[in-house]
């Protein structure tokens, strides 16, 4: 090939020429001169390294955004102070033999490339602390620089890359193909196949001019020598010449003590989630955001530049004072989740008493003593550790609630493994997204779960809960059986306990208000949940719990009291009968009953079959909780009538904070005549706090969080038992913690108001707020009013029209048999009845024969869909079913 020198960006690439420089063999983009021309001294330098087969063009948005913002900020200040906030110098190099850098004809190994880069930066006189930024194999080179310059390094940012290839795992298929004998040169150099394939990975497709810009330095076969060499330099085997350097970097990364940001396109055929997981383990402090719909060319697929700048501002320059908060003052003393179990098992007075009872058909009346449970937890914990499960490893539990799940959860917690719990209610697609997103190293399942994992390709070493014959074992890819794991752990010492701020669990949101999100709890926060529950509901060793709602079933051992699952199919709450509840109360002499609203409905419906003995047992229940979804006062009342001595509670919470507020049936009666709109959910539980961020005219929650009564806004919560963060969703965290007070707060996405007595009223979801000319309008209050109209079974109040001028429309589902059920404009009489009781002016009353609801709960009305439907009809469109 003919060597040729580096060149600057040719004309015709808008915006790039201003940054384009050549120094020796290097071409690089650099905004340093421009910043300096404006008298701006940067706070530091971002050193950006592209991968193969792209070039520094990849980073154009970052250069433009950071430079233009800095110049704007400086102009706004009117003077040019040192370190204009967010003013970063960005140096984006074209690696040698790549992009517009020189073609020297030399073959370069990874070690060469790391050394080349260091030589260049020594010449360039980088300013301030340095943050490296790398994509694809540029990520490895940038990390090589990072490892070699610990004194200069202030942070690392990585986009879809990898630093480690396990010896026992195949390299990604597309790379195997590119490396295959006979394909390699042809695919990478002779033709543009590798280049075009890579450009084709963009989601959505690249615009023609962008794709052409990527092709620009690689038009002739000779220009593509660097692409060929780069592919050849992939350390695909342990013997590869670049393998020692890769391993050196991979080990060095573990010792980096700087903030890190990982932005990941989940749909990358090369750098799959496996590599993200490896990096997360090496950089445990990293902020991670996994973009589910982005691919390998994530810098093209998502608007990454503002994200990187935001992170630089908060994590590196420390502009954002409220960034931390989990270790705020006043954190209560920490007692691990297994402490209650340990104590009851150690106490001779209680060790043989039952800890967990399982009256479900599958459990067949299993009764597990404290001692037995403790022993099983210890055996499984030690066994898991023996087979390689380590602190921080994730263990997905696809096991139905019952003593086995309970033992597994406590075993994992004890050794610091992070339990991943995704409800089967998410459906196979939802579960697949959840499993891919959380990327567990181990997957413990019953046969159905293992089969789904096999079919859908979920990650994780398979551990079977049930014994399997060798054929099924092989078919399901099972490596261990739980019984063997437990046996392996017999008599083996447990590893050291995890710390309070280690990750403990990833729980998934229901998915009824958007795609299911992983929510991460640390040990400290899980324990705080246990403590909040114990204190607020006065749970003691002798309380005894009937747990017809799965999440709370797991808390029994932590609370140090026996828990019993009644005879029901735990995944189908409508299978629970009143007699089954009574039997459970008798079996555990329970004083406290947890049920979901769906279960309560069936319990109330089957109350006529209760015997006198049953009723007497239920009469001993002191506390009764309806959890998991809102419940009507009438239904709560009906359930309470079966447990006349019990105080009925209905707490309000969400996956992110399971207990926010609580109200009793008496409390609900007390506010029955209050003028407030919405559902009263009571006062904060324990040390929890609630504030409201007022809505503006566009329905956005922009108000300063406040406890002023009567202000409609987004509900913010803070509590020791609030989630630590979302899992691998840094941007979601940023949004949930946006403009919150000092400490650890969460924007719930619910809207409502506080009353003068400090009670919280929920009025709907932020996404469902109407923006009318009279201001924002939350739907729940108006819906409650409309539901009082004769002939109305359910109602939704939705907005039609543009933001700020929306008209309120009532969509009503009529009581069956009460006249016409044709979709469209409500009949005159129904229309008049609805308008007569409505609390807000209504542009129209529409009839929906049946409300569209979410599959999971069959209770949450799909208001977004109804709003679209109503808008179509009211614009004169066709009348369809919603």
């Amino acid at each position, binding site marked *: 090939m003919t060597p040729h020198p580096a060149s600057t960006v040719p004309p015709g690439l808008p915006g790039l020429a201003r940054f384009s420089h050549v120094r020796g063999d290097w071409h690089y983009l650099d905004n340093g001169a421009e910043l300096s021309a404006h008298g701006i001294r940067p706070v530091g330098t971002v050193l950006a390294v592209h991968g193969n087969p792209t070039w520094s063009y990849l980073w154009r948005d970052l250069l433009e955004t950071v430079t233009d913002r800095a110049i704007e900020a400086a102009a706004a200040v009117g003077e040019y102070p040192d370190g204009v906030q967010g003013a970063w110098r960005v140096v984006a190099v074209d690696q040698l033999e790549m992009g517009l850098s020189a073609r020297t004809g030399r073959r370069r190994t990874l070690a060469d490339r790391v050394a080349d880069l260091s030589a260049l930066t020594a010449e360039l006189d980088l300013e301030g602390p340095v943050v490296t930024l790398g994509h694809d194999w540029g990520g490895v080179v940038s990390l090589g620089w990072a490892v070699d310059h610990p004194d200069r390094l202030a942070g690392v940012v990585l986009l879809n890359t990898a630093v480690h290839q396990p010896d026992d795992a195949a390299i990604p298929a597309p790379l195997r193909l590119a490396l295959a004998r006979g394909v390699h040169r042809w695919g990478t150099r002779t033709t543009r196949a590798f280049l075009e394939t890579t450009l084709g990975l963009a989601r959505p497709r690249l615009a023609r001019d962008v794709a052409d810009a990527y092709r620009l330095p690689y038009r002739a076969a000779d220009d593509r020598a660097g692409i060929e060499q780069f592919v050849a330099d992939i350390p695909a085997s342990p013997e590869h010449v670049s393998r020692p350097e890769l391993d050196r970097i991979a080990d060095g990364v573990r010792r980096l003590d700087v903030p890190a940001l990982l932005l990941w396109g989940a749909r990358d055929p090369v750098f799959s989630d496996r590599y993200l997981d490896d990096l997360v383990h090496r950089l445990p402090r990293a902020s991670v955001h996994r973009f589910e719909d982005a691919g390998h060319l994530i810098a093209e697929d998502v608007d990454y530049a503002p994200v990187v700048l935001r992170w630089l501002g908060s994590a590196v320059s420390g502009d954002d004072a409220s960034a931390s908060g989990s270790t705020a003052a006043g954190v209560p003393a920490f007692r691990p989740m297994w402490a209650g179990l340990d104590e009851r098992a150690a106490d001779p007075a209680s060790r043989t008493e039952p800890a967990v009872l399982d009256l479900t058909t599958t459990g067949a009346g299993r009764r597990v003593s404290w001692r037995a449970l403790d022993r099983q937890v210890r055996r499984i914990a030690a066994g898991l550790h023996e087979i390689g499960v380590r602190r921080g490893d994730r263990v997905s539990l696809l096991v139905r609630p019952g003593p086995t799940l309970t033992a597994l959860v406590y075993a994992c917690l004890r050794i610091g493994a992070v339990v991943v719990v995704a409800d089967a209610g998410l459906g196979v697609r939802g579960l697949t997204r959840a499993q891919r997103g959380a990327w567990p190293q181990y997957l413990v399942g019953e046969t159905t779960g293992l089969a789904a994992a096999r079919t859908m390709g979920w990650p994780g070493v398979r551990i079977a809960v049930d014994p399997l014959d060798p054929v099924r074992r092989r078919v399901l890819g099972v490596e261990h059986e739980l019984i063997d794991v437990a046996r392996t752990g017999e008599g083996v010492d447990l590893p050291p306990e995890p710390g309070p701020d280690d990750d403990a669990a990833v729980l998934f949101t229901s998915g009824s208000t958007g795609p299911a999100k992983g929510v991460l709890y640390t040990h400290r926060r899980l324990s705080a949940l246990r403590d909040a529950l114990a204190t607020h509901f006065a749970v003691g060793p002798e309380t005894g719990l009937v747990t017809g709602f799965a999440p709370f079933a797991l808390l029994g051992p932590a609370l140090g009291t026996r828990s019993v699952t009644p005879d029901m199919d735990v995944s189908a709450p409508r299978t629970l009968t009143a007699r089954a509840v009574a039997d459970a109360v008798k079996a555990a002499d329970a004083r406290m009953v947890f049920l979901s609203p769906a279960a309560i409905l069936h319990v109330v419906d089957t109350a006529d079959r209760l015997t006198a003995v049953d009723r007497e047992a239920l009469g001993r229940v002191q506390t009764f909780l309806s959890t998991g979804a809102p419940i009507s006062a009438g239904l709560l009342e009906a359930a309470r009538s079966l447990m006349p001595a019990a105080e009925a509670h209905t707490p309000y919470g969400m996956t992110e904070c399971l207990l926010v507020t609580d109200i009793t049936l008496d409390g609900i009666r007390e506010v029955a005549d209050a003028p407030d709109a919405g559902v009263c959910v009571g006062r904060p539980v324990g040390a929890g706090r609630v504030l409201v961020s007022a809505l503006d005219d566009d329905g956005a929650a922009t108000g300063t969080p406040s406890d002023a009564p009567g202000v409609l806004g987004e509900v913010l919560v803070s509590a020791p038992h609030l989630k630590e963060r979302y899992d691998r969703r840094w941007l979601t965290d940023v949004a949930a913690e946006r403009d919150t007070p000092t400490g650890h707060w969460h924007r719930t996405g619910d809207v409502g108001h506080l009353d003068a007595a400090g009670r919280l009223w929920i009025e709907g979801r932020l996404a469902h707020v109407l923006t009318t000319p009279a201001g924002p309008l939350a739907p729940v209050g108006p819906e409650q009013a409309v539901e009082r109209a004769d002939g109305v079974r359910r109602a939704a109040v939705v907005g039609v029209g543009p933001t700020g001028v929306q008209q309120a429309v009532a969509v009503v589902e009529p009581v069956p048999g009460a006249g016409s059920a044709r979709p469209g404009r409500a009949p005159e009489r129904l229309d008049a009845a609805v308008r007569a009781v409505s609390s807000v002016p209504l542009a129209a009353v529409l009839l929906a024969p049946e409300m569209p609801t979410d599959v999971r709960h069959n209770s949450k009305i799909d208001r977004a869909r109804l709003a679209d439907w109503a808008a179509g009809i009211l614009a*004169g469109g066709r009348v369809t079913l919603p």
Partner: protein
Amino acid sequence: MTVLVTGASGLLGSAVARALVARGETVRTLQRRPSGVPGAEDVAGSVTDRATVAAAVDGVDAVVHLAAKVSLAGDPAEFTAVNVEGTRTLLDAAERAGVQRFVQVSSPSVAHTGTSLVGVGARPADPDRARGEYARTKAASELLALGRDRAGAGGGLRVVAVRPHIVWGPGDTQLVERVIDRASSGRLPLLGHGAALIDTTYLDNAADGIVAALDRLADQPSAVHGRAYVITNGEPRPVADLLTGICRAAGVEPPRWRVSAGLARVAGGAVEAVWRVRPGDDEPPMTRFLAEQLSTAHWFDQRETWADLRWRPAVSLDEGMRRLAAHYGGTAR
């Protein structure tokens, strides 16, 4: 203040003239027939007649221009003569007479074609795309009037355009009484399913809005001069609900049968009289424009109108229906 109101024999013109008289202004009117407005000085004649117009504007401070040829069909030349040239004649005369303020009463149809309008603001008038001779010529005359706006430090004519949307009220022979007439003889079909949201303007609100625009022109500085505002009740309702309400108010049975919107658009139908504003024997066939008006949504973003005119509709739709019922002896829903 002396105000000239043109077209004061019509429902809205009369209401505007009465409102101005009621608050003590000196009111002169210009139209071909007697205005019937007590306390106003009538000048009889057409806006197309220069001499009459010159006499009418002599000595007035402000003009509210409502006179227009309002019809769904007719000779295009006649529309142009009255709506465009008449307005030009009036503007010329007003400028010469040193008139300070000019309110051009226009129509939302000057800016909007037959597609559904969902919460939109007042867009610029567009004579090329407006549908039908009325809308086309009203668009041209609105542009003409706003083009004469000369507000500045040194004074000069200030012009604002106000576009009330579907004005109705007791005594309304055009919409209300035709609906009643048709419904009572069983000839009032609903177009389509009747759910399209239509915003209308109760008569008194439209008159108040026009007077408010006149007052805002006097502000120093004026936020409204040179601009156009849509005026409505801000209470869109399904068209069928409105027609039903009118029928109930009049004590007649509301329509029960339907014509599909598509069919009506193709074949025309019987509803033309609902919107046919000028009574007479030249009843036009139903036009596509009308069918679209009644089967697609027409409602507006009123925030800017409310803020700039410092005006809100005082009579709600429900109150308007009650007044209608009181007038016709029916029942308000």
